[in-house]
Structure formats: C-alpha cells, structure tokens
C-alpha cells in the first residue's frame, strides 16, 4: 500500500488555489457521461450528491434511512465554525487553521486543515443562500458565539439545532436534483460491499431493506459519506443505525484505515441508567459555562447531593485547572470525571457520574436567566431522568461521540483504492487526534460542497474507465460474496441474540479502549475480541428471513463488522505508544496526569492495510510535517 498524500507544493495559503488550477477538468458536455455513486445522505453525502449533480454528473445516492433527511448529522447541536470575522475580534483563516491543528494535538495534515479553514467562509455563504435560518442579531446580521473554549466568536448556529438545519439545507438541494432527474435516490438501501474492477472502485453491492433484494450498482467512481464508528462502543451518542459497514467493507477491499484509535468522548452526556439502555444522550457543552462540576470528597458517599455540605464537595476541575476551571477541553473534562469514578467518588445509583450543579448560577443570575439559556436542555434532562435540574444537580458522564479516525484519504479525499473517495466523518483527514466543537459540521459540508466535486474531476478526466458489464467476473464475484455472507448470517441459529454480542463487545472496547488505555488492557481486549467474534459466528441467532424487512439481520451484519473493527482499534491504540488528544495511554502522562505526546516517534498517521481474515493487518505510516504551526504542549492550567 502506497500512501501518497498528494499535498500540493507551495505556501500553505496558496496550495488549494494552485491545486484547483492544476487539476484536470471534465468538459461540461462530458460530465453527464460520468456516473458517480455517493453512499450516505448526511451532510457530506447529500451536499456532495447535490453539487456533483449541479455540475452535470449523473449521480446515484444511497441511504439506509427511509429519507435522506434522517442521517445522524441532524443531531449536531452546537454550531458550525467559520473564519468570517464578522465580530471583528481578530479571527482569520489562519487562526481557525491554527486552532484546529493545535486542537487536534498536532496529528492532522496541515494542508487539509488549511483548506478546511479556507472554505469555511464559502460554506456560510452557501448555507445562508439556501435559506438556513441561522441566529441573527437585532440588525438582521448573523450572530456568532464562542464555542468549545475558542477565544474568538466564530460559531454560527441555529438555536440548538444547527446540524438539523444544515442537513435540511443539503437535503433540500439534493431533493431538487432528484426532482430534476440528475440524482437517482435509493432509500432504504444499504451498501454491503464495494465493487472493484481492475483495481478501480466501479460500484457497490446493496441490499434493499424492504424487499431484501441484493443489487449491484455500477459507476465510474464511488464516494463514501457513511459516518463514524462510535457504536463500536455499543453505547454512544450516535444514532441506533450508525455503523462502520460501508467503511469496513472498503477496508477489506484494500482501502487503508487510518488512526482507528482516535475516538472522542464527550464529557456532558446523561449517565447510563440500566442494562437495557440503548444509547446515550448528549447535552450541549454550553452547560459547562454556568454549571459547576463536583463530587463528594468521601469515597462511596450515599448522601443526597443537597445533604453534602460545601466543604465536603470537591470541585475538582476548578481545583486542578484554576485558569480554565469547568471549561477545560473535552478530553480533559472526560478523563477527570472517569478518575473520580475510578476512585469511588461517582454519584447516582450506578456510581458512574459526576454532578453538574447550577445552584450557584441560579442564585447569581436567577432561575429565569438559566431557563432562557438552557431551558430546552433542562427539559430534555428531566424527560429522560425524571429529575428536576433546577432543584437537584444534574448527573453527567462522558460518552463516545465522534471518531476522528476513518478511511485514509489523500489531499483529494481519495482512499488508497483508485476511484473510491471518503468524505465527512468517514475519513480521517482534518481533526487529528481530537476534534474541536463546531468543527464536524464544517468538515462534512466542506468535503461535500467544496472539495470532492472538484477533486473527483481530476480522477475522472485521467482514469481509464472501460465500460463494465454486470456479468463481469469481478462484479459477479462480489455479489456472490455478499449473498453468501447474508446466507451465512441468516443461518445462524445459536443461543445468543445479536444485541448481546454488541453489548459485550461495547463493554470490552469501552473498558479497554475508552477514555484511558494501557498496554495490559489493550492486550486483554485483543485476546477477548477474536474469541467473541468466533462465538458470534458459532452461537449467534438471527431470526426471520431475508426477503423482507429484517432488522435483526441488518444489525447482525453491522455487529459482525464492529467485531472486526474493534480489534484494529485496539491494535492501533496499542502501537501508538504516546498520548495525544482523544487517545490517552496511561503509561504516557506527565506527573500531573496530562497527556504526553511523543513527537519524535509518533508524528505520523497510522494506516492499517487488510491482509486477510486470519492474518494481522499491516501497519503503514504517513509522516506528518508541521511547517506552519510548530507543535507545543497543550496546557490549560
């Protein structure tokens, strides 16, 4: 596997412009002769489909949802960053670039991040023109807020529903092209494999979730906008259907998988309530602006929070980080909460939680102000827990939320398989080891609207794309593999439900490859996972048949892939002998317990190559260079 990043030469602020000029173009009259498949209809997938179609390409867009609008981008709350500097507070493309590289703990590719910061401004223009109702000031101009500890106000938002509004904008643009016939939309159609012909990605194999029909769709290029893999943890803030299957199938066909151990754990989620829990709910980070985080100083303190006097409370973030207090970055806030629970100071029935207390804020500002700021979040919390956060402190606990790792892509967003692209959360490109708040939306939309539609032309204009027939041997072979895998899953008639395997896997990954990782735990996980995987294929049970809706079968295929991915996640975490961003190796920390990077040995992307079902994946490295933002130690003391 050869990792050619294809980063253009020249100064960082001219690379993208130069590259756009250097790339080959497809003649407008020829564009309609090219057929591009886009898998996924989230922010990246929908925006890419719409833009490619506008340019004249013939596009097929696939989603397993009943409507493209349901993709999980919809759940993003906070906002989207852009370097508009509308507030005149000294923001610039370079500052956004700088913050993102630093926030990613110097593990992202500089050129990609700069391009992201550069197109961020066009994104806002595009979204406003599409009718996205961003918050506005009284004068009618766009409002901004500061988010995730940024020192400038660069976050654009639409109440607490920014992801929803951006996705609806992309969805509407997509539906416009569907109406024109330029995009063919396949709802409730799940991609189960990539078709490679002569080493090029030439299509996908899908299963229609309603009819169960297995179909092959051929094209000239394939783009995957299929999201992240947080559900490897079983419990995460991801939606129920989120899965790694599309990316994983691509990996098994030769696409390198980069940095799978970079996962983000969000500190402010509602804690697990019981065994039956199906997913976790995120509450906006903004709560930490006014809430104070604390636990009891005593171990195993069973008193109600109100009965614990002030001097017996440990406001541990304020104690440890006097400068940033409760506003330290996500990874720190999460890890410290875990420490407290590990010490036996956790709160709530399960002892896996810490208090987020608004009592002081309510006294200082009044309940009205707090309600105006966080009313909807308080209501959501009360709905889920039955507790009134105006009177009892909230309980929060970290939860998996986003995965920075993903399919390796070059500057053009192409994976190591020619003609196969990865966009949005599905790729690894822009966030390094840790993503900043309000940057996920920015990256999804940037890839879909402003990057892929141009870089794909460079490939289409130069690649040798002979017509492929459906009865081509490689095509038939892939279809048969998919069919036999489904048959194998349907034949599973053991004693354990699919969910029980997913839950057990999640437990292993969370315990050993979660907020804190160490060699012993990871090695243990690497022993347990293959055993569990083997048990899955021997003792799992799939009820129902394949010819109609069968949600158990759908889940079975996804869990089977998680069982493979989890192993590579742990392997990646094991070989990365340093701590950076969301990846915290307990062996590598400063005396104060902070992450300790090893720039000398680990300033690179780790990329895994599939070598076969029974052999270990091969490790490759893409060295990273920092010419514009010299690496420094992050400090929030």
């Amino acid at each position, binding site marked *: 596997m050869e990792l050619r990043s294809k980063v253009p030469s020249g100064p960082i602020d001219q690379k993208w412009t130069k590259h756009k000029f250097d790339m080959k173009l497809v003649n407008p009259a020829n564009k309609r002769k090219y057929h591009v498949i886009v898998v996924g209809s989230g922010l990246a997938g929908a925006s890419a489909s719409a833009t490619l179609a506008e340019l004249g390409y013939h596009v097929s867009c696939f989603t397993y949802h009943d409507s493209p609008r349901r993709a999980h981008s919809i759940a993003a709350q906070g906002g989207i960053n852009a370097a508009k500097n509308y507030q005149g507070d000294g923001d610039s493309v370079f500052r956004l670039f700088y913050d993102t590289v630093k926030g990613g703990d110097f593990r992202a590719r500089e050129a990609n991040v700069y391009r992201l910061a550069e197109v961020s401004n066009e994104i806002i223009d595009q979204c406003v023109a599409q009718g996205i109702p961003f918050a506005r000031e009284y004068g009618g101009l766009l409002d901004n807020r500061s988010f995730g500890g940024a020192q400038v106000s660069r976050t654009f938002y639409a109440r607490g529903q920014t992801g929803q509004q951006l996705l609806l904008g992309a969805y509407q643009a997509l539906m416009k092209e569907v109406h024109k016939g330029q995009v063919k939309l396949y709802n409730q159609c799940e991609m189960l494999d990539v078709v490679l012909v002569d080493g090029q990605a030439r299509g996908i194999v899908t299963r229609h979730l*309603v009819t169960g029909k297995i179909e092959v769709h051929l094209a000239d290029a394939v783009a995957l906008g299929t999201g992240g893999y947080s559900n490897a943890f079983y419990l995460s803030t991801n939606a129920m259907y989120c899965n790694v299957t599309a990316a994983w199938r691509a990996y098994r066909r030769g696409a390198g998988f980069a940095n799978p151990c970079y996962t983000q754990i969000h500190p402010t989620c509602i804690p697990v309530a019981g065994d039956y829990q199906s997913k976790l709910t995120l509450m906006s980070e903004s709560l930490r602006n006014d809430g104070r985080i604390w636990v009891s100083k005593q171990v195993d303190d069973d008193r109600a929070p109100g009965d614990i006097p002030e001097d017996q409370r440990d406001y541990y973030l304020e104690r440890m980080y006097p400068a940033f207090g409760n506003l330290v970055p996500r990874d720190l806030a999460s890890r410290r909460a875990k420490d407290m629970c590990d010490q036996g100071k956790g709160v709530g029935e399960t002892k896996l939680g810490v208090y987020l207390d608004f009592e002081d804020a309510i006294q200082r500002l009044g309940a009205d102000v707090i309600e105006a700021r966080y009313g909807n979040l308080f209501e959501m919390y009360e*709905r*889920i827990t039955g507790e009134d956060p105006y009177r009892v402190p909230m309980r929060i606990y970290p939860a998996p939320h986003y995965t920075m790792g993903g399919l390796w892509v070059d500057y053009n967003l192409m994976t190591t398989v020619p003609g196969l692209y990865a966009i949005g959360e599905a790729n690894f490109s822009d966030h390094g080891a840790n993503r900043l708040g309000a940057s996920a939306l920015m990256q999804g939309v940037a890839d879909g609207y402003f990057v892929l539609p141009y870089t794909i032309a460079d490939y289409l204009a130069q690649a040798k794309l002979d017509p492929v027939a459906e009865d081509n041997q490689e095509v038939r072979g892939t279809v048969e593999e998919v069919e036999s895998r489904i048959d194998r899953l349907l034949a599973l008639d053991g004693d354990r439900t699919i969910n029980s395997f997913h839950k057990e896997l999640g437990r292993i990954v969370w315990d050993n490859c979660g907020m804190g990782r160490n060699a012993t735990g990871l090695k243990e996980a690497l022993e347990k996972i293959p055993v569990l995987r083997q048990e899955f294929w021997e003792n799992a049970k799939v009820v129902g048949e394949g010819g109609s809706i069968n949600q158990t079968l759908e889940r079975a295929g996804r869990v089977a892939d998680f069982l493979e991915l989890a192993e590579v996640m742990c392997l990646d975490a094991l070989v990365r002998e340093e701590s950076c961003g969301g990846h915290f190796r307990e062996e590598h920390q400063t005396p104060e317990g902070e992450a300790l990077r090893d720039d000398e040995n680990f300033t690179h992307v780790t990329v895994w190559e599939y070598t076969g079902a029974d052999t270990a994946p091969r490790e490759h490295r893409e060295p990273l260079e920092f010419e514009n933002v010299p690496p420094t130690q992050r400090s929030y003391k």
Partner: protein
Amino acid sequence: MKLKLHVWRQAGPSARGQFVTYETDASEHMSFLEMLDVVNEDLEEKGEDPIVFDSDCREGICGTCGMVINGRPHGPWKRTTVCQLHMREYSDGDEIWIEPWRADGFPVQKDLMVDRAAFDRIVAAGGYISVRTGSAPDANAIPVVQVNAEKSMDAASCIGCGACVAACPNASAMLFTSAKAAHLNLLPQGQPERYGRVLDMILTMEAESFGTCTNHGACENACPKEIKIDVIAMLNRDYMKALLKAS
C-alpha cells in the same frame, strides 16, 4: 411494572394486520422504545420475529420514530417524540395499544414501520432554494429581519416525523407542507421562487394519498416540535396569491 401491550403486527404492505398481545416487565427508567427493545430481545430468544419499528437518533431530532400509543401519536407527553417518552408515565397493570401511523399516504411496510417517501416528494417539488454551490453572495449581504428569521426557524424545526398526518382526522399533510414552505417563504432568500414553490408543493401533496385540511388543529397538538397551524394559514394565503400571479 407488568404491562400488557397490544401491538399491531402486519407482515407486509398488502398483508392483513392484527393486534398481538404481549406481556412484559418494564422498569420506570426505561424509555418507551427500550421497553420495546426488551420485548424484542425476548422474542428473538424464543426464535420469533421481533416487532419492526423504526427509530434512529433517539434524541427527538431525526424524525425516524413514530407510533400511535393509546390513540395518541408519539404518546401522551407534549413536545416529545416517542423515543423520548419514558416509562415513568405508566404504572403496573397498564394496557397499552400500539399502532402505526395510519394514513394511505404512509403505507405500512411492516408492523409499526411506514413509508414516508411522500414527504420527500413534496420537498423535491419545491421545498428548496435554488442556489448553485459556490455562487452565493456574502452571507451578510442580505440582512434578515430578526423576527422573520425566528419564525422561519420555528417552521424549519419540523422533523418530518409525520405525527401531524397521523393525528389529523383527515390524514392531511398540510402542516408538514406548510411548515416546509413557510421556512423558506419567510426569508428574503426564498422570495424569487416563493409562489412557484407554493403551487408545486401543493400540487404534489394533492397527488399523494393524503386527506384535506379542515382546520381541526389536531396536527398542532400532536406535533413534537409544536409547529403552529399559522403556517397553514400562510400557505393558504400564498396559494391564492400564487394563483393570481400565475400567468
């Protein structure tokens, strides 16, 4: 708590459906869908087909979930989708009737899962602003009256779940169509296509198998995002203007 569930089971779009009764033991901390997950887990262990229902984000924003519980779309809580409904609402011995959205515009695919592609077709007909990627003017070039931006956001918060159709005694899709149109028609960016949009969306809505709006207001009461029927009045008004302007 012990509960008796009467769940609509229907093997496919053209199959005859019926209620099947299940008994389950639920915890008050569970969400309603987690309660059903547990029922399904038991069914799977027994080798029976689990109840098919659609749900994704379970945070009340994606609009995937939806079922009629004891006659009420999304169940008894206001401003709440069924995924956020929790079992505290119920007590030991309760009987719960669970049905899919019932509307010919939303054919049942299986059990509690319905096909809402009609909503996509309504949006495709005109629920967008045509702006080619990269051709937009600076975002602050056109100021938007703050009140209108807020009203537009109110309408845009529609999650497309279909509870409005499910609740409407006429199974009408007017609240959805109107919300979508209002979101765009309230903004300056939406003006050039405003009247064409209204005509196209209404004609598409009519071509689907929905009923007609008779101003009952049931949709507004069922909407988990509390979208008001004011948007329907706005669509009605725009429709008349559109007819007068049409050439």
